[in-house]
């Protein structure tokens, strides 16, 4: 157990830096004196708040890992961005904050000088990405100034590329609205969009042919146009069979009325507590440990997450307004890239179908990978809700109901497989909290039951690539990759 003193000491620099940066930002926003004061203190309080939350989450997960290994002899891993980003602050806090700030500035520069004119407004995602980059780059052995330089370059590039890569899909989701996706589960969503189009090739063609690209219009437009699209299939099938098959292919998720799952989110803390209690009780029963303690430890997890979320809210409250103000001045025509939940109103049924299918995919993946490797990836319900729902929306936009189901299943499998890969390179969250040192960051999976890791697709893919590069070719290869990618983006996106 690391002493609290060591943690406090490690937090001093990043906390003061947060306060200073908040001060600069609020001055730029021309807030009144009282607003600047409350904003500065709020950001600092929010930052420090992450750490007690993370410590409580860690105690809880250690207990779970212990019970699981006693009971079943398996290691468990809980992908959870909020928990992981908070957990690493005592060891890589300074690098996280510096990467965040310089990364967002790099992102603005890219928006200004290339045709990737997006404004990534989802600040908590940027913060998680900065924490991941700080963690992997520190573990790779790069020196501090290079960590910030490479990290900022990568954060800036990916904040611009991620919305750009899937803009064609996003446009199908939103119809004609001028927004992009700003969320680092993006590769999972685009995979869902691609899978959706593959499993239902006629969907895009025929819903488009009926006049409007928006999936919301699919019910009326889609069905009427099935009369023309039917001609090919009709040769082998009877008329009515062909019609019902064509109709089912053209069905959007939004043709179905599904009760909303919002009760799941009514109280994030209660949902997290319930799902965690279930897991902890199973583990405790099998390990013959006292049930009452298991319940309290399960609640610890939910409490820690609630504290971390409250901290993030305070820490990042003024970042999107600041980005909007800076964007308005330097890149006035930039497209705002927004949180995935902002897309939920476009396809509320796809939200529910996507979540359920994605979770099913994750559970299948959990059992498959668990049996193969002995490492069990436990999906956390609430984070999975956001990613699964969004995958459903993208799958539906390109492949209707079939697309939503297949796309979300693929996303769920990916969300289980990727963290298993990433854990090879970030090691356990446990080893990471030892303030200041990164010893044991690598290979900790074998030494000790692993507790937490980053979850969503982009974190896992970037982290795995960088980790693999670093361990194979050394830290300088990571720096070269970052510079190469940045040059590539500039060449590719140059305005003519």
């Amino acid at each position: 157990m690391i002493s609290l003193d060591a943690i406090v000491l490690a937090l001093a620099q990043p906390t003061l830096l947060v306060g200073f940066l908040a001060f600069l930002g609020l001055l730029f926003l021309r807030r009144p004196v009282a607003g600047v004061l409350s904003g500065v203190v709020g950001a600092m309080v929010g930052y420090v708040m992450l750490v007690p939350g993370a410590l409580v989450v860690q105690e809880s997960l250690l207990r779970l890992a212990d019970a699981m290994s006693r009971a079943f002899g398996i290691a468990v891993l809980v992908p959870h961005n909020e928990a992981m980003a908070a957990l690493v602050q005592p060891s890589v806090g300074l690098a996280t904050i510096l990467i965040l700030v310089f990364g967002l500035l790099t992102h603005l520069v890219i928006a200004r000088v290339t045709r990737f004119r997006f404004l990534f407004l989802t600040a908590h995602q940027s913060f998680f990405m900065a924490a991941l980059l700080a963690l992997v780059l520190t573990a790779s052995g790069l020196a501090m100034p290079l960590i910030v330089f490479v990290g900022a370059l990568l954060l800036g590039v990916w904040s611009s590329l991620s919305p750009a890569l899937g803009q064609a899909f996003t446009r199908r989701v939103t119809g004609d609205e001028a927004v992009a996706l700003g969320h680092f589960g993006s590769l999972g969503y685009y995979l869902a969009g691609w899978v959706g189009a593959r499993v239902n090739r006629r969907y895009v063609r025929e819903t488009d042919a009926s006049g409007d690209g928006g999936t919301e219009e699919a019910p009326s437009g889609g069905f009427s146009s099935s009369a023309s699209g039917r001609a090919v299939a009709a040769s082998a099938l009877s008329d009515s069979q062909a019609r019902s098959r064509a109709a089912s292919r053209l069905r959007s998720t939004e043709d179905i009325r599904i009760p909303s799952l919002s009760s799941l989110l009514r109280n994030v803390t209660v949902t997290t507590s319930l799902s965690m209690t279930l897991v902890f009780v199973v583990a405790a029963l099998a390990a013959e440990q006292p049930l009452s303690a298991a319940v309290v430890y399960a609640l610890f997890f939910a409490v820690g997450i609630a504290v971390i979320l409250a901290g993030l809210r305070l820490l990042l409250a003024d970042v999107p307004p600041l980005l909007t103000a800076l964007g308005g001045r330097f890149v006035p025509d930039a497209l705002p890239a927004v949180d995935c939940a902002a897309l939920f109103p476009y396809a509320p049924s796809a939200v529910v179908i996507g979540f359920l299918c994605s979770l099913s995919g994750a559970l299948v993946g959990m059992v498959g990978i668990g049996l193969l490797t002995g490492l069990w990836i436990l999906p956390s319900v609430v984070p999975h809700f956001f990613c699964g729902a969004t995958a459903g929306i993208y799958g539906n936009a390109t492949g209707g109901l079939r697309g939503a189901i297949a796309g979300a299943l693929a996303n769920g499998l990916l969300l289980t497989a990727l963290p298993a890969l990433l854990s090879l390179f970030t090691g356990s969250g446990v080893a990471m909290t030892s303030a200041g040192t990164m010893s044991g960051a690598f290979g900790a999976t074998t030494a000790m039951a692993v507790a937490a890791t980053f979850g969503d697709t982009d974190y896992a893919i970037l982290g795995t690539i960088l980790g693999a590069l670093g361990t194979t070719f050394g830290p300088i290869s990571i720096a070269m990759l970052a510079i190469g990618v940045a040059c590539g983006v500039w060449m590719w996106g140059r305005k003519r």
Partner: protein
Amino acid sequence: MKIYTVCGNGIGSSLLLKMKVEQIAAAHGISVEVTSLDANSAAAASDADLFVTVKEFADLLPDDRRMAVVTSYTNAKQVEAELLPVLESLGASRS
């Protein structure tokens, strides 16, 4: 007037909505103080003049709250059409 914007976690889409609400209020000379909240905290909070959110979360808040239900977090035109009447009537009743 004091306004809460509400979404599931209180860190993503409610923050976008908060910025939209501030823009619209500023454009019409209404002075507002907007905070973004998660649905759970919002259900317990009663110290605001207005809650702005989408239907899913509006259903979860107590009935006695004054609410503006919007159909998008990001579409400025839509939010303005749905929010401005409520803002104006509130502003008028307070002055």
